[in-house]
């Protein structure tokens, strides 16, 4: 409490992502949390149904996905060319460009820019890049309050919590939990929630509107990310729903945008592909309510001081591995999270990163390396069912990449005097090939029928069982997971 009293913004939970134990261990309490699993099941089920309805309206969906894949491949394979072009365009349009090798450098740049404006608060648009570099805490340490303005981010921030989903960071909270958080915390940081507020989402959204409006009206500096950055023109694009993005991008005098180097696209015309792929894949809408595009400084309209911080922070590691490179195509739609049976059961927190779910399982070990336990375990946080690839709007072959990363992790661990690598090598046989995996799963289903009173069994029988025994996963159903999946979830394809 004392520490909290000195802070400008609500304190996040203690501990760091990289200090987290491996996925399988984090998953246990999540699996035991009935409320969490119910919230997740409801939310992911709803969003999956919306997505499939909107995707099936587009007859050329597959053609679009292939275009989305190819344009990103072109960009990534010539990233140096496009980054230099983006910088030239931005400077021509009146923006100042900064480059950051890692999170610490990016944070130093942003903190310095905010301090130079002499302010002690900023308003923020939801941005994965700023979460990745943990900018809010860097600002807090410098005595600067960073106010999250996206409703879900606000719920996470006021709840002293961490995001658990890319698109709906508070997906693990239900309406009554949100109500309690708003009632308890809003009054400590600005306009209070009405005492008689109910858990009706419309009332809760109304409380957020009032709470944030005073912050929007007075903020002098805003921090954003960008969904896309157009090399040809220097245009940045932010896709959002609530209008908090527009508020941040339009009202303050100074705008600082933190952009991962992989966000660049060659031309404005390329947007026609991604503005069709993204909303249908992420929120299951034909189009998201608001998209903002701006090109440096527009005289007389919006921020008159515009900064863009281009961040590497491990992206060049992923780029250097041709088998890992496709992960950088990700447009953060979160369709792979919503379709993932593992994510649906354990939620986002177990992944130990702001990037959870299937994309997190491939991206984190590449961005951060595989020296930490959490990153070593992430490539195993999957059943390799393949649904994530099927829904991915830029066709990232996540299952193949997981297999590749599993081998890297196993190689990395070779020589380590632990029991696990042996079992890992055996498990490798099962996991190296999807057919082996299905075979093993069918055998496990058989075991479930033979041993009906056993409630827990590794999903993989011998030879992988020495490794899976410790995993304490629920007994598989008598039909194999994949065949069950085919019957029940074809909707997403």
């Amino acid at each position, binding site marked *: 409490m004392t520490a909290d009293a000195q802070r400008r913004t609500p304190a996040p939970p203690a501990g760091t992502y990289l200090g987290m134990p491996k996925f399988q261990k984090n998953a246990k309490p999540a699996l035991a949390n009935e409320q969490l699993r119910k*919230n997740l099941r*409801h*939310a992911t089920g*709803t969003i999956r149904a919306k997505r499939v309805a909107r995707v099936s309206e587009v007859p050329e969906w597959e053609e679009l996905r*292939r*275009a989305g894949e*190819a344009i990103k*491949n*072109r*960009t990534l*394979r*010539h*990233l*140096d*060319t496009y*980054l230099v072009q983006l910088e030239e365009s931005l400077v021509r349009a009146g923006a100042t460009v900064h*480059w950051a*090798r890692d999170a610490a*450098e990016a944070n130093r740049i942003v903190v310095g820019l905010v301090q130079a404006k002499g302010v002690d608060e900023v308003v923020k648009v939801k941005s994965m890049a700023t979460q990745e570099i943990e900018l809010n805490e860097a600002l807090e340490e410098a005595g600067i309050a960073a106010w999250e303005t996206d*409703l*879900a981010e606000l*719920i996470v921030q006021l709840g002293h919590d961490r995001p658990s989903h890319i698109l*709906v960071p508070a997906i693990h*909270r239900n309406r009554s939990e949100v109500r309690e958080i708003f009632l308890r915390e809003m009054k400590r940081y600005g306009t209070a929630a009405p005492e008689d507020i109910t858990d009706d*989402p*419309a009332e*809760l*959204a109304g409380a*957020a*509107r009032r709470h944030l409006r005073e912050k929007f009206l007075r903020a002098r500096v805003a921090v954003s990310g960008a969904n896309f950055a157009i090399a040809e*023109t220097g*245009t940045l694009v932010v896709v959002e*729903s*609530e*209008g908090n993005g*527009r*508020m941040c991008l*339009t*009202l303050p005098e100074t705008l600082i945008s933190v952009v991962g180097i992989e966000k660049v696209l*060659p031309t*404005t*015309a390329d947007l*026609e*592909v991604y*503005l*069709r792929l993204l909303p249908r894949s992420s929120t299951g809408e*034909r*189009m*998201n309510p*608001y*998209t*903002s*595009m*701006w*090109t440096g400084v*527009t005289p007389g*309209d*919006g921020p008159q001081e515009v900064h863009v911080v281009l961040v590497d922070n491990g992206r*060049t590691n992923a780029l*250097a591995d041709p088998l890992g490179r496709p992960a950088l195509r990700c447009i953060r739609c979160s369709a792979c999270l919503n379709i993932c049976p593992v994510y649906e059961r354990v939620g986002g927190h177990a992944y130990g990163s702001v990037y959870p779910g299937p994309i997190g399982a491939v991206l984190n070990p590449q961005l951060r390396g595989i020296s930490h336990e959490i990153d070593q375990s992430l490539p195993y946080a999957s059943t390799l069912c393949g649904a994530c690839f099927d829904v991915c709007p830029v066709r990232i072959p996540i299952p193949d990449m997981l297999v590749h990363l599993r081998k890297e992790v196993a190689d990395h661990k070779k020589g380590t005097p632990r029991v696990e690598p042996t079992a890992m090598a055996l498990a490798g046989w099962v996991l190296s090939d999807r057919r082996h995996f299905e075979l093993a799963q069918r055998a496990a289903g058989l075991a479930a029928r033979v041993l009906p009173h056993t409630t827990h069994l590794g999903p993989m029988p011998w030879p992988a069982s020495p490794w899976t025994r410790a995993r304490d996963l629920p007994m598989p159903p008598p039909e194999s997971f994949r065949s069950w999946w085919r019957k029940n979830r074809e909707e997403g394809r």
Partner: protein
Amino acid sequence: MNAREEILGRVRTALADVTELDPVADVPVAWEYGRATAMADVLARFVETTEDYKATVVRAPAGDVPARIAELLAGAGVATAVLPSGLDDAWRAAIAASGVSVLDDEPQLSRAELDRIDAVVTASAVGIAETGTIVLDHAADQGRRALTLVPDTHLVVVRADQVVSDVAEAVARLAPAVTDGAPLTWISGPSATSDIELSRVEGVHGPRTLLVILSE
């Protein structure tokens, strides 16, 4: 080495396997840009998809637009409206005659002043039938971005010849404005969120009421 040189150096090292220097030759993109999406009636589809977002849509012959604007503002209980400098004179006259008190943005209104105004009335740049989207390029008949953001009601007039079938055609039409440095705002229905249990709630920070007139 400074950060810029080091990052570009890392990128070049990482891409050592790429030998074709021309991006277009290296990765062909099998996509024809700017194509129209086939649909029976573009205008009817635009009305349908825009209404899908709970926006109010009224079709009117161009000559009736001033009267329709006045009616819609009255229906929404609007007492004050800010009008961009380049707005059609006939629309402006009709609004003033209807008793709504009209404000101009010259000199620029402060954020707090905008927050006290009920509504804004603007033209638009493009309408997209397939997605129910209206795009502003913030020309003089639409005003700077803050005008269409802070007041709680936005009445926007879309001309029939501005409505295209889908996103691809829209991007093609808007590209010259982007090249000129104009900001764009794409609006699909009123402000909305699905952040609480994925249930859609209309109205968070942007205008909670979106009134659309399709001028034919």
